[in-house]
């Protein structure tokens, strides 16, 4: 029997909450004002920010339809690391701090909920067949950076998935590529930390059906100073709070390709 797909006209999609409950609150409020029919999260609720348990009530009350990210998978399975695959001890040092902090402060019922989340979602957005994933359709923690994702690979992945639109996150920096055959790949960005551009806002994506798919990246300003102060009070590394305030990434830089790395400060 053919799979029954949810059908939508206009949706909001974000990734990487990273415990940033203040940005999540602001994003959900912003999405409600934009007349979207559903809000999707492509995974990674924890890491980096303060107070892991504050994001779950917001996701649940907001009716957010979520996917499991690699961070969520790690928390659920009791892994000892976030599964980002760093080899540089400096990146691993910081990743371990935030993972341990998040693991210890994520309630059992929240972990159980993360364990129920699917790794992919399919839906129809007008005429477009949409596939949602966290890293890539084939690997949960595959990084699809704009400068390191060939169009040939996107065609290959979407052929296999029988999709016209592929939505992913995981890298932390948004991008959109319209292929010549009218298919689209969109990295929807993350709302947990700014995207290494020297600005404190975060980003999510609104997609609107039509003969042509409309992809709109939406900046979200939130009380980032309050978040940075909470991070400091929680004893999280000063480097994390610096990123929230400055918009520049200070850690976990190892996987950035040359072009994305060159745009950042560190």
């Amino acid at each position: 029997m053919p799979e029954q797909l949810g059908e939508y006209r206009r949706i909001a999609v974000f990734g990487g909450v990273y415990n940033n409950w203040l940005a999540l609150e602001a994003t959900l409020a912003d999405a409600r004002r934009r007349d979207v029919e559903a809000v999707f999260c492509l995974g990674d609720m924890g890491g980096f920010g303060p107070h892991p348990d504050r994001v779950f009530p917001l996701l649940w009350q907001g009716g957010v339809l979520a996917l499991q990210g690699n961070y969520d998978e790690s928390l659920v399975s009791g892994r000892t690391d976030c599964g980002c695959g760093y080899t540089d001890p400096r990146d691993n040092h910081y990743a371990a701090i935030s993972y341990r902090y998040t693991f210890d402060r994520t309630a059992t019922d929240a972990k159980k909920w993360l364990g129920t989340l699917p790794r992919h979602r399919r839906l129809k957005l007008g005429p477009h067949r949409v596939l949602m994933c966290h890293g890539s359709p084939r690997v949960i923690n595959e990084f699809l950076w704009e400068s390191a994702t060939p169009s040939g690979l996107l065609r290959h992945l979407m052929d296999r998935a029988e999709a016209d639109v592929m939505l992913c996150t995981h890298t932390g920096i948004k991008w959109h590529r319209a292929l010549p055959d009218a298919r689209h790949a969109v990295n929807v960005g993350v709302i947990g930390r700014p995207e290494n551009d020297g600005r404190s806002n975060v980003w999510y994506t609104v997609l609107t059906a039509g003969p042509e798919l409309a992809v709109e990246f939406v900046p979200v300003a939130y009380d980032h100073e309050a978040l940075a102060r909470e991070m400091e009070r929680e004893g999280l590394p000063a480097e994390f709070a610096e990123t929230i305030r400055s918009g520049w990434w200070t850690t976990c830089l190892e996987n950035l390709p040359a072009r994305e790395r060159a745009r950042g400060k560190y």
Partner: protein
Amino acid sequence: MSPQSLPLLGAERTVPTAPFLGLSTLWIQITGTWCNLECHHCINASGPRAPWLRPLDGTTVRRALAEAETVGVKEIYFTGGEPFLHGEILPLLERALEIAPTTVLTNGTLIGPEEADALAAMAARASYSLEIRVSLDDTDRALNDRVRGEGAWTKAVEAVRLMRARGLLPIVTATEITRDEHGAGPGMYERFRDFLHAQGVDRPRVKIMPVFALGRQPASGEPPLAEEDLEGFDRSVLQCADARVVTSTGVYACPILAGLDGARLSTGRLTESFVAAPLYHPACVTCRRTGMTCRNS
């Protein structure tokens, strides 16, 4: 070393394999084992005289690139030998960058201002990231040159400076060959990062690789992997599960074993090599143990 130095396998022994999951990483061994240096630890015993693996011609490279594009390759690497000895290296890099992000592994000794200008211009106009990986085994000139040859340190460090001055962010790649010389000092990443900062290289990028017991390194004497060594191990993380290496003598399972008969999977087209790879060599034990990859990350 020659391909004949392969360990002999007992007829009764079953060689474990890694499944082929699809071509994610294409390696082009552009200069075969032709190199202007003769490093003590070179995995394929490259050098300036009579390379045992000959360079590739441009036509073969272009054909492999086109094949790889049709199957959705994710990234392309050029290695050798020393890729910048190849007369067509720049146009071939340019062609590869039309298809996928492309990395070139170099000793840096042939990159002067003119080459750095060309690479920076290419990186700026490319659709995808161009990565330059410069091999440097130690931040100390004498320790490095003991392994890589007199003068190698100065030229490689200068290449890194020249590229950085033009906006490129080369990845300095080191093996652990001189690790024992540093006692309880800072770790390798930290030492290299501090060194690069001191050279004026902000945003330093470092990759560390284990030393493999092949090529000019003495054999480990370790037995190759057996099925029981792989119980509970996810073989899909091995690079031979989604990488292939094109050389002048065929297509091989991984960059470490390129040119060795036991790792050859095709003597013709790239797609013919899309089969399970035998984990027959003691070097496969190193990949199994360390989880290492020859990719940038």
